[in-house]
């Protein structure tokens, strides 16, 4: 049996989301036995550095690449180069559809946004004003989520406040400060929808923030619907510090990425778009996820 | 007609009145000595004439017409060269580079103008030889002894086509034999019709070359006399304040 080296390239290594994907891929690689998972990417989210690392991996002669695309056009150029060099290439989490990559594994970000919007409508159908918090201003997948939220809420009673979304640069502390700022700037705000889990990655900061308006949150006067379903977030939801979470399955992405690359190497055909699905979590079903 | 005239010039730094209502004039080719205790305001006066500070009050005229000397570059354009007390050298350049700073010798290659390194080094070596100074033109100024640095600052004035040269303690750090050279240089300048204002604490030097002597005390001009009408003793008394004015 031949052995392979597959490299998983995240957008940024300083993002806990990708740690889960890494764990999934490492675990799967260990199970498979003949596959090695190399996890490497830029420390911060920056397209040119990612492209350079991919070039380095091509030089190094890895057998397969799974890339969470930082910039679509930039990645397209290097992906095509990798494919020409005979490397199996797929994308995960964030896609470059026009490139020669064989498959995309991950979430449909538009759908992710829509799910967030729908969950907000489910939590609080009567509507009001809402604000969003995003990560980096340049991230295409986050922009899609923002669009998805807007699409889902179009025509409903919900209106977006000016100055939304704010950009937290994936920084938990800054995300939390922006939560506070949004609430102060718009005292009547009916919902805050972070399209990534950043502020909740700081559980006590989040509690602190919510405790300031605990009554409003309990009565859903301020609805909190947040992206991602990391364990800390589930805990917070269970404690009543949020109303709903929509999560991707990064661990599963890591697993599927390994399987897909191996399948390509074994000459099997794979589907071009592989959605790993979304988890919609509310107080009712949170225990299932906490197990 | 006088070359430079100061009319009621004052300069204040916050609470310090460095110059107070100072007026005098310098004729072309005249050598004027400027003396005074430390902190009397001599360097401040030089800096006003060479365009570093604007006066707080009063005005200057140069060659008969009102002069607003707003910058050192403008003073140079008027024909005023200065040897500053703090020497104003770029430590990271060689002696030759400092001497030619702002006046580099160049040759043309198409549209470009490149430096003539050798010509500048050779000319600088000549100037040092003329001053009998043990200064090497391609040494960095950073590595030079105090007197070598001063020689660089003095050599610099020799390149220009000046009408007035201000020398703020040019001989403070240089050795006996160059002092004589600097004094004879000042004599030669006079012969070429160039006026010199010489600031020095060395009484014998001032009396050796100057035609007129101005004494400052705590920002005020207390005396302005031809050299023949005064004596080292009187000047010392004026400087220390033992004598109020003359």
């Amino acid at each position, binding site marked *: 049996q031949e052995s392979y080296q597959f490299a998983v390239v995240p957008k940024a290594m*300083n993002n*806990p989301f990708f740690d889960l994907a890494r764990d999934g891929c490492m675990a799967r690689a260990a199970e498979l036995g003949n596959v090695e998972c190399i996890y490497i990417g830029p420390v911060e989210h920056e397209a040119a550095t990612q492209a350079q690392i991919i070039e380095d991996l091509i030089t190094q002669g890895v057998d397969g690449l799974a890339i969470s695309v930082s910039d679509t056009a930039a990645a397209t150029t290097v992906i095509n180069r990798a494919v020409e060099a005979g490397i199996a290439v797929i994308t995960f989490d964030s896609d470059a559809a026009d490139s020669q990559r064989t498959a995309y594994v991950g979430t449909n970000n538009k759908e992710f946004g829509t799910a967030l919007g729908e969950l907000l409508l489910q939590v609080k159908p009567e509507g009001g004003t809402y604000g969003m918090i995003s990560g980096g201003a340049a991230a295409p997948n986050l922009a899609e989520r923002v669009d998805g939220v807007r699409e889902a809420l179009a025509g409903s009673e919900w209106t977006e406040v000016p*100055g939304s*979304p704010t950009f937290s640069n*994936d920084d938990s*502390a800054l995300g939390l400060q922006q939560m*506070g*700022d949004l609430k*102060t700037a718009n005292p009547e705000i009916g919902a805050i929808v972070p399209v990534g889990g950043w502020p909740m990655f700081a559980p006590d900061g989040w509690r602190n923030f919510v405790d300031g308006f605990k009554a409003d949150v309990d009565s859903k006067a301020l609805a909190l619907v947040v992206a991602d379903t990391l364990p800390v977030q589930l805990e917070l939801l269970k404690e009543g510090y949020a109303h709903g979470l929509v999560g991707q399955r990064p661990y599963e992405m890591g697993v599927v990425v390994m399987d897909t690359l191996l399948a390509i190497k074994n000459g099997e055909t794979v589907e071009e778009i592989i959605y790993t699905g979304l988890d919609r979590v509310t107080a009712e079903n949170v225990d299932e996820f906490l197990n | 007609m006088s070359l430079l005239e100061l009319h009621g010039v004052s300069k204040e730094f916050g609470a310090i009145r460095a110059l107070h209502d100072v007026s005098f004039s310098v004729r072309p080719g005249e050598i004027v000595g400027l003396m005074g205790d430390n902190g009397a305001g001599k360097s401040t006066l030089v800096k006003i004439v060479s365009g570093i500070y604007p006066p707080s009050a009063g005005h200057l005229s140069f060659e008969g017409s009102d002069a607003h000397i707003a910058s050192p570059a403008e003073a140079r354009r008027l024909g005023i060269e200065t040897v500053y007390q703090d020497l104003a050298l770029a430590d990271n350049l060689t002696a030759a580079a400092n001497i030619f700073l702002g006046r580099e010798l160049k040759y043309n290659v198409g549209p470009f103008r490149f430096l003539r390194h050798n010509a500048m080094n050779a000319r600088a070596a000549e100037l040092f030889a003329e001053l009998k100074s043990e200064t090497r033109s391609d040494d960095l100024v950073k590595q030079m002894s105090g007197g070598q640095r001063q020689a660089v600052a003095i050599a610099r004035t020799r390149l220009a086509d000046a009408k007035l040269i201000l020398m703020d303690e040019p001989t403070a750090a240089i050795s006996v034999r160059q002092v004589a050279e600097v004094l004879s240089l000042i004599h030669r300048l006079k012969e070429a019709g160039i006026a010199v204002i010489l600031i020095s604490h060395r009484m014998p030097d001032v009396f050796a070359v100057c035609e007129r002597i101005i004494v400052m005390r*705590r920002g005020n001009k207390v005396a302005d006399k031809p050299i023949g009408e005064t004596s080292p003793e009187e000047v010392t008394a004026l400087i220390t304040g033992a004598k109020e004015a003359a």
Partner: protein
Amino acid sequence: MADTVQGFSNVRRTRFWQKGFLASQSAYVLAALIVIIAIMALLSPNFLTPGNIANITRNFSFIAIATLGITLVIITGGIDLSVGSTMALSATVTSLVLSGLAGAAIALFPGGALILAVLAGLATAAAIGFANGFAVAKLKLSPFVTTLGTLSIVRGLTYVATYGRGAFPTGPDKDLFIAVTAGRLFDLIPISFIYLLILAIAMYLALHHTAWGRYVFAIGGNESAGRLTGVPVDRVKIQVYMLCSLAAGFNGIIISGWLGSAPANLATAYELTIIAAAVIGGANLAGGVGGAAGAIIGCVLIEVIRNGLVLARVDPYWQQTLVGCIIVAAVLVDRLRSLRNG
């Protein structure tokens, strides 16, 4: 002669606005700050609400303690780019030790685990500071490159320590930890603000009323002169870098208490903000000038701008541009001072 000083007939009495704080850059930036606060209050009715003021107070104390530390380094003519990383590593170590002691189930007196954990975090910071100071003072390396190296080294270690996952403070002392970092005194004043005040006063006293402070300024003014006149230059420099790292580490621990988490990317790129705050507050990167009051004013200014623009609901894409403009404008007021001093 009533108008002269010490018998110098050419010196008048210094007017009150020509000396001390009123003649410093800090005073002018304070004036700019007040103007900006007034504008922000007009733009957003929520700006001057007690809740928001409490927010601002807490947010700026988060970087202000580190700014105090870096101001010391800047006064000596150095720079420390590793403060952001140090904040992260100290916070991580504190969280790990706190959780580790809880897990190890070693019976300690109440609060004992917390004290050990915080000491571990601060010891880490002190070690980083010592390394920086040693390289700069003894090996005479450029502070910029050295601390850029440490920035990278320390951030790397933070990732290595938790394999990128970050750490969470847990254990019996966790509530105490939250209370002493994110708590409020009399339910009103954020406790981090109290720490800041105490440290700022200590720094003021040390800088202006002890020989050590003199040495710090002398090193920044003319390091070789200091060395020639018997100032223990190397020792003071090492101390200054250690204090800077300690301040950053303490600041990091406070932030992690407030967050309830020490993510591995905590305080990424904060160094530039912190240095900007110090410089806006009057510290001069060429050395020899700076102070505690200015550092705090600089931090308040930066936080007021950030917070105010969000409250004024400025388009987020424009916010960054405006922050930059206001920073430049804030230092422009210092030109007024120089112009007036002619």
